[in-house]
């Protein structure tokens, strides 16, 4: 975990250094999200004595684990200047596939999980093929795929919630004690995934290529980066990550629910945007996405503790999203002198 904790910190430091002489926040910076997150935490700490307890923070992480995991895949795609509207629907279908195979066909649970993740990765692959081979805009491709996956979920499940799942499918919902706090395995898995992708994006050549493809596709092509192959991999890997999110979803709810995850596509985009990643591609950090997801979680949780109606949480999140994309646009314009 040491690489994980040091990489965002050091990149933040280097970004701070880059910013200070120009007194401008560069596009894709994680400073804003961190400040917003700390401010939110400070505010809720003054408002509720329960907020800053281990149990409550573990709850926040558990509440964001599904959207947070989806948002990892979403980050990869947005870094390439794409967008994925189909992530929640793909996850829902993957979850139904896992549940149905394990319960109805009696397939060994681990095999059912693998099958579900493979199905999700295949959806991602198809998205990627349509984007790279047919040159369709990601927005349209994934809008279509959203409907396809949504319909397939309802057809395949026959609109029925699947219960009586084998324990392997819900194991990630179990907890273990950490100090005096109970932490779910699923929360840990999400954090590990963030660490893995922070490493891949920040420390490997493949990660550099993802940034280059999103930032300057033609320059990337001319330097010899296989742009289409990188894009295809990004969409496929994102699909596989949605498959893992499907498993977390099942673990949290304990059932296979065809109606699950219907707004999660927008929630995942919210997390990415709040995390400071640029919708124009090529700038941002996956750790920012984690902070973005936690920010949404903290606001929801804090307002709940204060007894504020939940509709205000949506209002505040909406305002923050608009603020975040405004900062993104302004800082991008400034850097395009």
């Amino acid at each position, binding site marked *: 975990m040491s690489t994980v904790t040091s990489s965002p910190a050091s990149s933040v430091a*280097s970004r701070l*250094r*880059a910013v200070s002489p*120009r007194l401008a926040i*560069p*596009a*894709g910076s994680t400073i804003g999200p961190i400040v917003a997150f700390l401010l939110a935490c400070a505010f809720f700490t003054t408002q509720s004595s329960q907020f800053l307890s281990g149990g409550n923070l573990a709850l926040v992480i558990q509440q964001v684990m599904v959207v947070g995991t989806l948002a990892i895949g979403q980050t990869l795609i947005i870094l390439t200047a794409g967008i994925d509207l189909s992530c929640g629907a793909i996850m829902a279908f993957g979850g139904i596939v896992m549940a149905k195979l394990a319960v109805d066909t009696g397939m060994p649970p681990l095999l059912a999980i693998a099958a579900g993740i493979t199905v999700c990765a295949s959806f991602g692959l198809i998205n990627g093929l349509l984007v790279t081979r047919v040159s369709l805009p990601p927005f349209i491709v994934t809008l279509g795929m959203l409907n396809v996956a949504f319909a397939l979920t309802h057809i395949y499940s026959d609109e029925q919630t699947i219960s009586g799942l084998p324990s392997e499918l819900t194991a990630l919902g179990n907890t273990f004690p950490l100090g005096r706090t109970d932490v779910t395995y699923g929360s840990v898995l999400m954090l590990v995934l963030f660490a893995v992708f922070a*490493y891949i994006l920040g*420390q*490997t*050549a*493949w990660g*550099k*290529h993802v*940034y*280059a493809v999103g*930032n*300057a596709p*033609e*320059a*990337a*092509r*001319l*330097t*010899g*980066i*296989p742009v289409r192959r990188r894009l295809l991999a990004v969409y496929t890997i994102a699909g596989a990550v949605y498959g893992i999110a499907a498993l977390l979803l099942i673990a949290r709810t304990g059932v296979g629910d065809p109606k699950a995850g219907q707004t999660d596509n927008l929630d995942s985009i919210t997390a990415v945007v709040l995390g400071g990643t640029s919708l124009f591609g*090529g*700038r941002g950090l996956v750790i920012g996405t984690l902070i973005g997801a936690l920010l949404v979680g903290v606001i929801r949780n804090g307002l709940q503790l204060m007894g504020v109606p939940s509709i205000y949480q949506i209002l505040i999140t909406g305002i923050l999203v608009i603020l975040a994309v405004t900062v993104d646009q302004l800082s991008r314009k400034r*850097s*395009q002198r």
Partner: protein
Amino acid sequence: MNQKPAADEKQSATQEAGTNEETGLVQPVMKARGLVQRYGPVTALDGCDFDLLPGEVLAVIGDNGAGKSSLIKALTGAARPDEGQIWLDGKEVHFKSPLDARRQGIETVYQNLAVAPALDIASNLYLGREKRRKGVLGTVFRMLDKPAMKTASARHMAELNIGLQSMGGAVENLSGGQRQGVAVARAAAWASHVVIMDEPTAALGVKESAQVLELIGKVRERGLPVVLISHNMPHVFEIADRIHIQRLGRRAGVVKPSDHTMSDVVAIMTGAVQI
């Protein structure tokens, strides 16, 4: 992937000046005949020929839209010509991508498309050829050797006298000239065969232009031939050994700066005189 920039290896890439049996002339390092490149209704190259001799600086000049950049793209695999043949050291080549050309030691600074602005200098210099750590970190975990890349990049930039305060920031925070310097430095660092620059001094001031010209001289001293596209006649006459004049998608002629005046060359370029 773990190669070093050619300049690191101090390799002398001097070309063996082999002779062409048929003509008895020096064999060109790069040669093209009858290149045709169409973009929809536009014919950018209309049967264009090209010859680059060992160790020379060849300037390519021509009006806007004459097909200079199209010629470079066809020669370096960035675009695939509709017709025509290309030879490298006498062997016919069919580059399918810019990577194929780079693998042959041909480095190109493309007009306006040189760098990824959001990435830092070291990432740009090593883009597509990143250096990995030694041992398990590199082989299993694929970890980039960022310190080594940064140190080597700083050295390359210093060699070119491109004054930079820091190597860490994104390239977009540099001035236009410094940005161009990064692209030129990358080409010079990696080339082991041919260097091609499409208007490298277009965005540069007097001092920076002079540095790029000096750099071209250094590359020639290493024995590498250089193709320089430029609209700046004094530069061309200062540095070029031969001048390829491009007009309406074809080679209108090749002249030596010593044999012709600037106004002769302009006359050929505009079609007022034919040779």
